[in-house]
């Protein structure tokens, strides 16, 4: 007997499975999947400016830094400012999805591709953002490679105000509506990577970025 049959067989025996209750069981499974019951959710004010406010507060609490500009077109200049402030080179790997912005005009040299170990700065957008916890929802694709938010020491993300939703459930609903099936990698990112393994002392920059800088695009 294969291990699959052995394990499932024992589970079935323990549950007293027979043909009749298997049919009802299958109905229960189908109904549970169709109903998508949600648990209680913390109150999050759904008004647009309130969502942005909460997203910013939570992001700051998670050690990200935040800047606000009006439009997408202003983003490259905001990036250049931040890099200069941090005394980082004006050079970054970016999501191919963002290649259309005028990076050269802002004096930032960009490479639109997946990230490599040597890349110091990674610039991404986000699929949407979650106000409840100050979280970016990143969906991987050829245009939005996952490594750009992971390998570089500095991660800069552009967040459109209209894409801030209340909770994780709303992010998943948006993914279902817009992408159909779930992409291979959905990453929820809240601030820089951290560890507390040595003496429960929090240190930023474990394996992922040391810094996460968010640029909120208010009119987008």
């Amino acid at each position, binding site marked *: 007997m294969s*291990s*699959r049959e052995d*394990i*499932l067989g*024992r*589970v079935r025996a*323990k*549950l007293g*499975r027979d043909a009749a209750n*298997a049919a009802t*069981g*299958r109905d*229960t*499974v189908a109904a*549970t999947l169709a109903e*998508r*019951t*949600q*648990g*209680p959710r*913390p109150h999050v004010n759904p008004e647009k400016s309130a969502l942005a406010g909460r997203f910013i507060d939570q992001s700051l*609490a*998670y050690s990200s830094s935040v800047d606000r500009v009006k439009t997408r077109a202003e983003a490259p200049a905001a990036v250049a400012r931040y890099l200069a402030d941090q005394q980082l080179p004006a050079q970054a790997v970016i999501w191919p999805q963002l290649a259309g912005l005028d990076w050269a005009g802002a004096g930032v040299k960009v490479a639109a591709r*997946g990230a490599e*170990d040597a890349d110091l700065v990674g610039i991404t957008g986000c699929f949407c953002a979650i106000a409840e*916890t100050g*979280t970016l929802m990143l969906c*991987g694709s*050829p245009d939005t*490679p*996952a*490594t750009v938010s*992971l390998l570089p020491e500095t991660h800069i993300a552009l967040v459109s105000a209209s894409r801030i939703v209340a*909770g*994780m*459930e709303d992010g*998943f609903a948006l993914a279902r509506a817009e992408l159909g099936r*779930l*992409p*291979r*990698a*959905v*990453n*929820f*990112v*809240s*601030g*820089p*990577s*951290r*560890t507390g*393994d*040595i*003496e*429960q002392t929090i240190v930023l*920059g*474990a*394996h*992922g*970025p040391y810094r996460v800088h968010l640029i909120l695009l208010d009119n987008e």
Partner: protein
Amino acid sequence: MESRSRRFKSNALAALANPVLQGNLKMAKGKFVDKRAIAIKEIDDFEGTREAAKNLRNRVLENLDLWLEKFEENATARGATVLWAKDGAEICRHVVEIGKRHGVKKAAKSKSMLSEEAGLNHALTAAGIQPVETDLGEYILQINDNEPPSHIIAPVMHKGLDEVADLFEKTHKTPRKTEIPALTREAREVLREHFLTADMGISGGNFLVAETGSVALVTNEGNGRMVTTLPKVHVVVTGIEKVIPTLEDLSTLMRLLPRSATGQSISNYVSVLTGVKQPDDHDGPEHLYFILVDNGRAELVGSEFQDMLRCIRCGACMNHCPVYQTIGGHAYGWVYPGPMGSILTPLYTGIENAIDLPHAATLCNQCGVVCPVKIPLPELLRKLRETQVETHLRPWFERLALKGWAWVASHPALYGLGTWFGVRYLKWLAGGKASIPVLGTAPGWTAGRDFPAPEGRTFREQYAAMRAERRKSS
């Protein structure tokens, strides 16, 4: 991993006598507790969320076979291979076979408690595959000659900065560093190299989502993302009880897991991974395997211990346990310490191999109060104690004493006589003081705590006197 739980008592005594460990435990104590207390206030209906989490975990367990089939169907449809393992040996066999099939030389691992259950690192090394632990805590343990973890969330809670500094100096052959950020950076640099060169990533799975066939991975360091993004093969090793129905259920559980574990509102990284790399993708594994493990879990389905299968491995029960806080995790002798470990170890490794663990609790119910999926841990500990008595696993003198007590207790006159002598003897032992300094037949009991002295009359005597008084006055 071989269990050393039989030696719980001597393990615990050694832990109590170890000043370094005691210092480290004292330092850690409370950090988790205080942070959790603050974090749970952020959600308006914490109790309601616990109840919802309990119900959704129960819903799966009631039809576990069907949910596993549903998960398997959806994961396979996205290009993953689903394998099954009855025990630790079969996990090792599967992983080694996968490694050989894809010519793997190095496996980067993010934390998986099941890989500890199976002793997977030994098997990989024996097969010529280099395992590299990438969770900072697990890495420290690995370079310390594969020491076992002492906590499921903070594996090196028992170690101090000095010890880590020594280990890094010795292993990396670099100048000794004494600042935690500098040590973390050094580990980052060493491990980055491993991430980039590993051909296989091995992870656990916090949850398996049936509706999409995905694994959900929760980390703060980002190593979970690394091992599932860079290597060409990804193997998920996880228990059959980890299935949840929907992404909505994941959202509910994610409000509880980080808060209960580390007192965070959310972990830094939550990854929901589905299927294999697509032709135009820049990253992601070309091959994805799920190894769904029984190792004792199926036996609990439908049993009086089924509640334990709801566990989401947050560690809150051990963080809040006065016994764990005093002796640390190693004394428990197997993979899982604290209250949840005192239940899982006997159930998974044999009740006769962990006789003392169900007794390593004061039944104060701190664990039951904080458990995010409302597992009645003290009740399960009590059930295990009952099972020990029923199956004659307790020592003969204890059984004899209990039998004797039961006999006396079912003969009221004799019981009355016994207690009449008892209280007078104890009062005499106290010699007029409020507590008894040394208990005659069990001096060990009073060595570390007070035994309040009785006032000299039994309850029955006092009750009879009170009734007589009443009758007189009416």
